[in-house]
């Protein structure tokens, strides 16, 4: 029983972080049908902002807010620098510009800050633990679960009930039709990037909270996780991305708990084999999105 509770907390906290990462990626993909390969760098930007404001006397929550805002700014910058100028041209062009923007940000951190990791300020609560079912459980895990629930709830409300959300969903379903009906294209796309940056900023703080330091290549892992989660869940469905995040966390955690030491070395091979099996069964991912998937 104790064991089961621990396991569930682990899956939920890891899954919550994965789901938020995936949501930020799929949000932009849904509208543009293009993967933003500079997504991981938004997390990096949040991390370095925390590092840079670390020396100031501001309360931690303000620093965190500044970091999230900077991630949103970086998200918007991605749109203006890498997507908008070449959006109407070819997929290849955008693929390359988004990779280029990612490399540019990473190397800027490497050159202007340092190739070595830098520490970030974290509040006391991130390193405290509480007893749950007789086992010390990190507060950070609980915070991650709560943050994921709150953000996913807020996000669902935004998409279902607000004009912006409805317009974004309309744009994701049929962009041309949405434009004809008066939805301003650039505004919708920029909002998607800003929300994507917001999610990356929050998840970046939670993710870096596990690590304690930030380095130029910190965004690689989250980008990969987000991408796999989206592929599992379905690249066109927002719910799918969230589901994919939790499934990926469940697979990883289960394998971590059950594989023997000799097999654990090859855990990623097992994870990806399972992902391939899921895709063979459901090539479109677990959840189908809106049927018309034309690129805009």
């Amino acid at each position: 029983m104790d064991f089961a509770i621990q396991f569930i907390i682990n899956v939920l906290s890891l899954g919550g972080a994965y789901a938020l990462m995936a949501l930020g990626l799929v949000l932009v993909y849904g509208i543009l049908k293009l993967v933003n390969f500079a997504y991981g760098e938004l997390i990096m930007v949040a991390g370095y902002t925390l590092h840079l404001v670390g020396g100031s006397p501001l309360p931690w929550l303000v620093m965190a807010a500044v970091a999230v805002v900077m991630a949103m700014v970086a998200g918007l910058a991605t749109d203006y620098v890498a997507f908008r100028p070449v959006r109407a041209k070819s997929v290849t062009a955008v693929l390359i510009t988004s990779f280029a923007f990612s490399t540019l940000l990473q190397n800027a951190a490497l050159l202007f800050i340092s190739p070595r990791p830098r520490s970030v300020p974290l509040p006391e609560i991130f390193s405290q633990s509480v007893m749950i079912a007789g086992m010390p459980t990190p507060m950070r895990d609980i915070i991650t679960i709560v943050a994921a629930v709150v953000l996913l709830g807020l996000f669902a409300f935004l998409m279902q009930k607000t004009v912006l959300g409805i317009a974004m969903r309309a744009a994701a379903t049929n962009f041309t039709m949405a434009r004809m009906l008066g939805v301003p294209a650039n505004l919708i796309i920029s909002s998607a990037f800003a929300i994507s940056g917001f999610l990356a900023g929050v998840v970046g703080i939670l993710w870096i909270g596990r690590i304690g330091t930030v380095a130029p290549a910190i965004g690689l892992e989250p980008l990969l996780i987000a991408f796999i989660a989206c592929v599992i869940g379905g690249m066109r469905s927002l719910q799918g991305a969230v589901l994919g995040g939790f499934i990926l966390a469940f697979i990883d955690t289960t394998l971590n708990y059950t594989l023997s030491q000799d097999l654990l070395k090859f855990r990623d091979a097992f994870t990806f084999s399972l992902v391939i099996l899921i895709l063979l069964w459901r090539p479109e991912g677990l959840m189908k999105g809106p049927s018309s998937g034309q690129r805009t």
Partner: protein
Amino acid sequence: MSIKKTAVLIASGAMMTAGAASAQDGEELLIGGALSLTGIQAPLDTPGFLGAEVAVDYLNENGGILGRPVKFVNIDGKSDPVTVGNVAVELIDRGAELIVAPCDFDFGGPASREAQEAGLVGISTCASDPLYSSWSLGDKQFTLSMWNTTMGAVAANFACEEKGWKKAYVVTDQFIAYTKSLSKYFVEHYKDIGCDVILEDTYTNGDNDFSAQLSRLQALDETPDVIFLSSYGQDIGVIIRALREAGINAPVLGGDAYDDPAMHEGLGEKLGNDIYFVTHAWMGPESHEKMPEFIELYTAKHGEAPESSFVATGWDTIMLMAAAVEAAGTTEGAAVARALEEGEFDLLTGTLAYSSAEEGHEPDKAAVLTELTGGKPSFMGWRRPETLPKP
């Protein structure tokens, strides 16, 4: 500034260099570096590069090598083994007479192989896997670092004999040859000297999740006296955090990958306690009388104090080359290699003597033991184990 003016400035600059060269009366000695200043290897190679630059300036101010001025040219190896190899070829084409190879077998090996092919001595700044040997790379190739056999043995002796920690829990990150072989030699030596490993576990670099391993550790009937954790980069901090948060306060022990000020700061006063690691150098006068002078020169050249003790490996690599070339009287590969095999060198990163090429150029080197308390490192002293596990 007008174009004409710039041209004049460049010309006068060139004349100044020419003047300095003729003053030392000799042809320039080119040392080629294939260190990676970008990519995954940059955190280890950049400090080595910065340290090497300081050493070259120091040599030139003190008469160069064999009376010849020294020039150090590094071309970014970009953390890509193929690029590192190509860069080495280009440097050799340009007339490099010695090669500085990156700080790891996978990344540094290609540079050393090209150096061997061209009959030159190549030295890696800090590759510590025993794969970095004359057996696999050739009779003119060396690594400045101790091997993981030494690093593992020093850690094992310290835990088992010095501290009397008899039961160890060992975690091995499956990331690279370094992380795996360090655990292997620790476990081997630890058992050889009569201590026990109660549990061995695996971790995947980049996971940032240690919960399954924790539950296996907590399921044991006994508690470990010490935790030997061989990981890499930021993941060391992740795992130590996870252990301490779960209320596991046993001392943590590891290798030179712990020598990272950002990790120490990140763990801070609360979590950065009871952590010990074996590394190359200590940036203070306690470890070597020459250390303060090096730090002063470094600060003067680069405008800031060294970020990590890995800068000393770059300085030492160049100084080791200089000492060997002076002893050999030439930069010819075979002669320099012989001088390296025969000499005993007093370096910032410890005394060093190599075995013969038949014995793999195994470095017999001293290691620094460092303790972390309240997020602050302190020097515990040099250790040079009497017996080592077989590579």
